[in-house]
């Protein structure tokens, strides 16, 4: 790789760099379109039809339909863009974040009340089991 990526050894974390941005370009631009109320309405009325208006990959479209944020991120989605999807759904950042951790929203909310996820064991791949 030509681009220096010192951040690839952080567990459970995708850094939105140029390579990810290129993969996710149309997915993210689709997300931006949801900043207009009329687009949100059209999207909600027929999600598949609305997605088909965008030159996204089929995997990206399916990940959106499934509201699978980890898959969207694997395919170049950035969380600040993806926020337009769950905001359109009337859901919170906490809801979306919980779905990405495999926890229920209640478990996740309780973890946050307990002080959040500890950095212990979460800094480097491999020490992941440390916690």
């Amino acid at each position, binding site marked *: 790789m030509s681009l220096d990526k010192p951040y690839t050894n*952080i567990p459970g974390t995708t*850094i*939105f760099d*140029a390579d990810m941005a290129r993969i996710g370009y149309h997915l993210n631009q689709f997300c931006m379109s949801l900043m207009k109320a009329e687009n949100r309405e059209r999207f909600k009325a027929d999600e598949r039809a609305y997605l088909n208006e965008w030159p996204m990959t089929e995997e990206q479209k399916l990940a959106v339909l499934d509201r699978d944020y980890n898959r969207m991120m694997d395919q170049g989605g950035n969380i*600040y*863009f993806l926020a337009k999807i769950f905001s359109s759904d009337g859901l919170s950042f906490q809801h979306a974040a919980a779905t990405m951790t495999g926890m229920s929203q209640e478990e996740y909310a309780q973890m946050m009340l307990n002080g*959040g996820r500890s950095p212990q064991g979460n800094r480097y791949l491999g020490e992941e089991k440390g916690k």
Partner: protein
Amino acid sequence: MAKITAGVATSHVPAIGAAIDLGKTQEPYWAPLFEGYEFAKQWIAEEKPDVILLVYNDHASAFSMDFVPTFAIGCAEKFEPADEGWGPRPVPTVEGHPRLASHLAQSVIQQDFDLTIVNKMDVDHGLTVPLSLMFGQPDAWPCKVIPIAVNVVLFPPPSGRRCYELGKALRKAVDSFDEDLNVQIWGTGGMSHQLQGPRAGLINQEFDKEFLEKIVNNPEELSRKPHIDYVREAGSEGIELVMWLIMRGALNPEVIEKKRFYHVPASNTAVGHLVLENKE
């Protein structure tokens, strides 16, 4: 002459905006957080700044992937609250200060900062939540605001050091503006948080508390912290903290700490807040 009299740092979590907009500030979950801002609300009512240089990051609201400025300054007359997917926040239009903003742009470009000048943009929660925290729910914001937007969305953001130096350049620029203005600079975003992936929910209290200490009393050293440390230690969105260094760089080397506040959690995030005054 215009003068930077004080700096404010605060997180800008969207859920805080929602709590204010929906009248939930007295609920048990939120009350301790808003209590932490009581000092600042009274303080600023007395300070009466004329203009706030509000350093924040756009969260893919004004800037899509089509256009990603590292540093942008808003020179417009006004900025409307952005529709981030649930309709615009019910807050007043933000009034700019085109003359001072243009002066700042001219001055810092001549100090070798490659700013992008923006004359049309909506402002998202990154800018409006701090205003709500500090001013509550007025019919109109009580002062002018110059948005200074920093890219922390697309890697690489500017380094902490570059941000700190931009703060110093802004300070010089304000000092050379020939109108009597009480100017504050706010740094927003952070503290530790990660909104994405299996590591979402990361909170590093030790990191945050050290950051709060160093940005007050040892910003030179803090400004050399590399990007990777923020991301690894404070979460992928913890990188927003570099923006506080712009605020700090614009203040005197020594400042009076009027308030320090730290709280966990607000939704996914640790909340940090400082009120710093320039020593005479």
